């Protein structure tokens, strides 16, 4: 018995001649936030639809919580919450009524529904506007209502398609915080996004999509090591004798770049600030500034497709 809640193997979707998803495989573990990242049209949404049985699978198979979404859709949908890209509600109904309808469809007993709805609305901060029509809601509020639906459902897996697209920075942060909250509850979250930078912060692991293929899977530092050969940029501002040489002897440091008389830039596989500080102090130098720039997904992504873009287009 493994701990994977989603297992996809050779998942493929063809539309006529075109191929939208080309034999991708990945696993999502319990309580993990897994990001499907990539540009629009890379096959992220199609992958999600196949996991929910909302579109037919051309080849390969996928298991969600051990169930086949095509043959056992009810088992899957009972435990999976889905927030579609720009989620819609019945605008003429109140927010709470929209949730009541879903609760009835899920089949919760009448006695449980109100408590579940109230609790879910409270967690996404919509209690005060629960009796308003959804038509009056802003984009961010709709997304939060969509999350409330997943919370109400007590889903074990949450699938969020572009949850932050079209939101302002503040609403995005709020939503990402709620997604972290889902993880704290032990919910496995699978989210897709084309906004690498914003989403990087919440994802435990990511899969980078490129025209129907998964180019890379792993944690962000792993990918950084693979693609950028490090990815951590440590900036040191210090005086001292022969610091450049000593820095380059440290383990984990790939290259040292001296940009000024007392300015060094270390390209490292990991965060080497403590070791760098020790080196400066041991050399009797004075340390004035020490900062680190974590590897960014944007950099990884751009670098990767500079290197492999041509090959993938051909494949």
């Amino acid at each position, binding site marked *: 018995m493994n701990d994977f809640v989603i297992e996809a193997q050779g998942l493929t979707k063809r539309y006529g001649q075109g191929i939208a998803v080309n034999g991708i495989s990945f696993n999502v573990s319990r309580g993990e936030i897994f990001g499907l990242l990539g540009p629009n049209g890379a096959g992220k949404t199609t992958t999600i639809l196949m996991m*929910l049985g*909302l579109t037919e699978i051309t080849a390969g198979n996928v298991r969600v919580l051990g169930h086949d979404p095509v043959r056992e859709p009810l*088992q899957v*949908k009972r435990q999976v919450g889905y927030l*579609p890209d720009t989620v819609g509600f019945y605008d003429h109904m109140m927010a709470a009524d929209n949730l009541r*309808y879903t609760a009835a469809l899920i089949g919760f007993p009448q006695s449980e529904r109100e408590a579940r709805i109230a609790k879910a609305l409270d967690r996404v901060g919509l209690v005060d506007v629960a009796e308003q029509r959804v038509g009056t809601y802003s984009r961010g509020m709709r997304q939060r209502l969509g999350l409330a639906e997943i919370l109400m459902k007590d889903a074990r897996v949450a699938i969020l398609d572009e949850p932050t697209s079209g939101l302002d920075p503040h609403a995005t942060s709020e939503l990402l915080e709620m997604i972290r909250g889902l993880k704290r509850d032990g919910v496995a979250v699978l989210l897709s996004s084309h906004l690498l930078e914003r989403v990087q912060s919440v994802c435990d692991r990511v899969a980078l999509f490129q025209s129907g293929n998964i180019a890379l899977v792993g944690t962000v530092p792993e990918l950084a090591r693979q693609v950028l050969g490090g990815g951590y940029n440590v900036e040191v501002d210090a005086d001292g004798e022969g610091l450049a040489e000593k820095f380059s002897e440290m383990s984990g440091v790939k290259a040292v770049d001296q940009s000024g008389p007392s300015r060094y830039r270390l390209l490292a596989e990991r965060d080497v600030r403590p070791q760098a500080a020790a080196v400066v102090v041991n050399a009797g130098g004075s340390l004035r500034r020490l900062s680190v720039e974590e590897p960014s997904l944007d950099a990884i992504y751009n670098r990767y497709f500079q290197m492999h873009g041509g090959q993938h287009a051909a494949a």
Partner: protein
Amino acid sequence: MPRREGSPWRGMNVVFFRELFDHLTSARMLVLELLVVIFGAAVVYFAAEQIRNTTAEDPFLFLRLFAPPGQSLLSFVVVLSILVPLMAIGLGFDSINGEYSRRTLSRILAQPIYRDALLFGKFLAALSTLSICLVTLWLLVIGFGLIRLGIPPSGEEIGRLLVFLIVTIAYAGVWLALAMLLSITVRSTATAALIALGIWLFLALLWPSLSQMLGEVISPSDIRFTALNLPTPATLAWQEGLARLSPSTLYAEALVAMLNPDAQNMTTLLAQFQGRIATPLPFDQSVMQAWPQIVSLIAGMIVLYVIGYVAFQRQEVRA
């Protein structure tokens, strides 16, 4: 491996009651009902006035309220045969693609229900809404007749009127199934409504004369029959067969059989030829006469629904 688990009806009653509530409280339904009530009231009022002025003995006085003889254009049944498709199309044209455009469909289908439940719940809710309206109208007209004419309908008349009501609901079901089929296959609600109205105009207005012409083309009239001023049987068969492709024709034929027991049809013509006096058909014979039409209407409704169902099952739900 199990083929499919769970009941396809799970959640259907939830969908049904919500849709029914939506329909009954919607402004659209109110407008459609007002339309029918106003038209119906005017037409029935004139029919009643006409009946009050006639003194001739008539065993089917009550039926004349619905279908006054000789007045084909301004009768209650004609108003119904025009407005019922409009109501059905009005209720069904956006049932599925409306969910797409509101972007609610994938969220609803991500709940543990089958698509069957959603589609059938919607269909039943719309059909129930139409039935409620039609039954109400039917009762209103009968009540009006009781007050205005001052005579109760006979048992046979009630039977005929009940069959008329069922046929009308089946007729509404055909148009509803067509509208829902379009709402599944056409992504834009406005386009679906336009296509549905186009089909309705074509089948109700153009097709009767077009089928006459086509029948003549496929099997030209024989001069021996035309000389006697009689229709050529082969041509007539083609013309009738083609005309019956339109639900409006089927509905009209079933109504003539049920509401005009003494109508000039082939049997009465035969009776005249044989020198017998044409008498009104008894109730069971009228039903026999309308039976193929009734069955065809119900079959048409089921076939259209099933086509829509198959299309919906295999559809990709993006958004």
